[in-house]
């Protein structure tokens, strides 16, 4: 086993946050059923969270002892802007999914993300967006009947019209 010999920027803070979260969860687990009985609904949560607290302490102590890794910066190596931007894009997608519907939000997301990451111009991005969206829509909505959020596009009405039209004309 090769143990790490230095810590990365932000690692100390992360491990500290983990410890705080573990303590909070331990307190929450205690609140379920206190130490009432071995078979209560709080038994396993208590066991799990106490192990979390102990191991979080061990990890934190180990991390404090290590020297900071040289030449590594949080903003460049751990959380570069590109990650932040993509996370924000995904967040937007998820927020808009229900209000404006799957088709529109996914199209916007794919188009922006591909233009930004692939950098081959907007025509290529648009083409790729349409092809991949059509594939995903066919597989999920049409074959496996997953009802994706419809939002502002009345998909079911459009499909009913298309199928009516087909049955009327053929």
């Amino acid at each position, binding site marked *: 086993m090769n143990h790490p010999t230095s810590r990365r920027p932000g690692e100390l803070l992360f491990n500290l946050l983990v410890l705080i979260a573990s303590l909070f969860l331990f307190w929450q687990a205690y609140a379920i059923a206190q130490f009432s009985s071995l078979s209560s609904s709080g038994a396993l949560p208590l066991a799990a969270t106490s192990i979390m607290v102990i191991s979080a302490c061990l990890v934190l102590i180990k991390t404090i002892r290590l020297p900071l890794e040289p030449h590594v910066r949080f903003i460049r190596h751990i959380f570069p802007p590109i990650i932040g931007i993509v996370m924000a894009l995904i967040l937007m997608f998820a927020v808009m999914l229900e209000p404006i519907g799957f088709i529109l939000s996914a199209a916007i997301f794919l188009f922006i993300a591909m233009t930004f990451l692939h950098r081959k111009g907007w025509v290529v991005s648009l083409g790729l967006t349409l092809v991949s969206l059509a594939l995903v829509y066919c597989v999920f909505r049409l074959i496996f*009947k997953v*009802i994706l959020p419809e939002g502002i596009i009345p998909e*079911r*009405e459009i*499909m*009913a*019209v298309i199928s009516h*039209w087909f049955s*009327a004309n053929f």
Partner: protein
Amino acid sequence: MKKTIIGALTALTLSTTALAAFPEKDIQGIIQWGAGGSTDTVMRSISPHAEKALGVDIVLTNKTGGVGAIAMKYVNSKDDDGYTLLMGAENPQMYKVLGLGDMDYNDMITINILARGTPVFVARNDAPYNNMQEFTDFVKAHPGELKIGSTGNGGLTSIVMAMLQSQISLDYTSIPYNGDGPALTALQGGAIDVMPAVLGATIEQIKAGRMKVIGLVDKEANKLLPGVAPITDTFPGLKSYLPWGPFFGIFVKQGTPDDVVKKLQGAFQQAAFHPDFIDLMQKRGFTILNISGEEANYFLSGYRSTSSWLVHEAGFSKRSPEEFNIPRP
């Protein structure tokens, strides 16, 4: 090409302006319980018959969670246009007293209550008791020793045991399972001794002799169980609660237009008369009800009264039935 587009456009405008009769698009059916459960099986076997009567597809979706509360909440968050059906079991009738929500089926419109199950007591084959009298005597003689499977507070087992406890005080150990399937498996493996369960879930095992019936929780004998006396022979006091049993029903949101409700009720009533469906339900030991309207409301209120008060008197309700003006049975 041009013609095609014009054709499509006219079709679109026509259908939106003329407002074709319900249903003009696919209907979404929300099943309260997971794939493979009894509610799922029943709904998936009736829907194709109803589809024929309605002329559109019913797209079935399982939406589990919160003892069915999540599905109920979802359906009630949709438009009251009859395009979203709630397909569920009896659980919501207990939500109020168990503190799981402030809505039940009485706050929705019933499309159809399809069928009702009959609870039975089953025991391990090697158990030294064969009927309810011997069973209760055995529990009395061995306090705390007998292991009875349960499916949580508000589940069928808890209510049947509450009924029994209202007649005779018993001291036993309750072993919880999440569903009657796992509990009945445990019964065959010897992890529990007795289990109150719905007849349909046990009938095949009983026929094969892998477990035995020791009690039929009904007022009358059942033709699937020849020679088993109804529980009221031993405990006549239970007559006021019976017949009682879990049920399956289809519901829509309050406020759905009358003509839509009529259309749906008609379709499902016709579907529930289909011989395949009747055959399937009877083989599983369910009593076909196929009721809607007043009759259904009466049934729902009766179920709610009996169960809520039993649960309340057994001491595991979160809120009193009185708070919701649920009358005593």
